[in-house]
């Protein structure tokens, strides 16, 4: 989770049923936030591109896996080279189980195998793929916290090559 010393950069919120009414909301929110948080990074365009790519995968995952009543919140905090993306969403048992299971899998030694299997799977897409990608390709640390019908997905990510 994010430490107390992290600086809050931006927070965006909207009703979940509004968010999940249009797929392109994932793209628009990730592009908007990426543009803003990249501004004071050494190479803003490079950073924006990577940040948007990572955040879009998170939002697409949330788009497909969320509870029904409540708001979607997206908050970004900064700790030096690391940014922390916190996505809050309404949650039910099924939603909670999904994210808890994925995060458990991220800690396993076979995460790269799981990622490749999901990436090149025949047939229906694996809903865990986006989070697997963040953990493997971006070395992101993802945690999940549930409380009173809501769930917070926290992703610590540093784009080492974004100079």
């Amino acid at each position, binding site marked *: 989770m994010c430490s107390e010393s992290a600086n809050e950069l931006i927070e965006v919120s909207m009703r979940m049923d509004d968010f999940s009414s249009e797929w392109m909301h994932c793209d628009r929110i990730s592009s908007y936030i990426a543009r803003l948080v990249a501004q004071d990074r050494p190479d803003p365009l490079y950073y924006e591109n990577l940040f948007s790519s990572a955040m879009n995968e998170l939002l*697409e995952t949330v788009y497909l896996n969320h509870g029904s009543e409540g708001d979607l919140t997206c908050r970004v905090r900064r700790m030096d080279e690391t940014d922390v993306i916190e996505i809050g969403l309404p949650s039910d048992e099924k939603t909670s189980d999904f994210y808890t299971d994925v995060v458990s899998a991220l800690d396993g030694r076979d995460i790269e195998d799981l990622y490749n299997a999901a990436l090149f799977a025949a047939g229906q897409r694996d809903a865990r793929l986006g989070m697997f990608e963040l953990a493997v390709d971006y070395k992101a640390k993802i945690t999940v916290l549930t409380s009173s019908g809501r769930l917070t997905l926290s992703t610590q990510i540093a784009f080492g090559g974004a*100079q």
Partner: protein
Amino acid sequence: MVMANKGVFQAGFNENNQEFIISGKLRPSNEIELESLLRGIEEAVANVQGRFYLNVKRLAYINNIAFCALHRVIAQLSSRRLDVQFVIVTSSVLGWSTRKFSAIAQRNDNVAVAEYDTEFYPGQSFLEDGGFIPILRNQTRLTWRHERDLLTQHGLQPGTDVADICCGIGDFAVLLKKEFDPSRLLALDHSRSSLEYARKIASDFGLTDIEYVYGDAAELLIADNTFDFVTCRHSLQIFDKPDMILRELFRICKPGGRVYVTNEKNSHCLGEPRADSIQWTYSEVAKLFSHFKMDVEYGPKSGRYLMDTGFEDVKVDTFMVTNRDGDPQDFAAVIQAWEDVYAGQMARDRGDSAEFIARFRQGFQDHISAALHPKGYAGWPIWAASGRKPL
């Protein structure tokens, strides 16, 4: 064939190059949205022989839904067409591109990934290592005294949005910032070592609002119509496809804004005494660069190329940097740096004989002597040209 989806992505097949190009953003909600794109790839592959290029170097974003769909089609086609080598052309400008598409190549024998940028710049290795930094520093110091006034004549105004493309070590951007205080100043280059140096220089001067960006001048990620004034100095002459860069400069310039370029004609460098030796060496410099597909004779052609790109109100000026401009040692230092790279590295890499290199070096030394001699004269001509993007 050109296809597009809500202005988000564009795709098309170039039969001459056997190259299918996808650019923009691929973030569909399902594969059905990509049906025409995937069918286009299948149709393109059906008609190729030998090698098929899938060019994604300007595909700025892709989600996993699109990636999986692309992989599925490429895997099917590559297993069906074992006689064809599939090459996916990526870009180092995008942090994820080569890594992501390499996964496809690892799983399919006749699929390879080529990172476009490193192959695009034939002479880039000479310019991207730290050895060129002394040349660039001295050059900017010498040219600025001429360009400061020229920039105003070519339309640069304080408080506007400015981009310096191929910014090198960023010293020109620092001077722009101090003199013209742009409301936005983006400085882009393709050399990470130069950008690292640029950020250090800016930091030393306490300049925190210059955006130093890693990028490919021919394939900029910058949006259309973004800047009021775009500079690109001493750079068109060292790329083998300057027309591609000019088109990008045109694209990112706002309508009514101007693009400003400077270039040289190296064979016209001159000096007295020992004019013949000096002239011979610089004529050979032009041939040497030509060998590496760079045109250091570009200067007088600048105006024509700007017009061909679509610019109007094209202005062309020349100025001669000389040993009389300031400290002759500065001029001599530039020539020495040229000799070190051109004779010490490039001529050797071309396979030139020791005899040739000795004569080649002599011309530089004679140029230095002319610069430092109390009665001598040494000159380096530069063409500055700009054009306005039509409204």
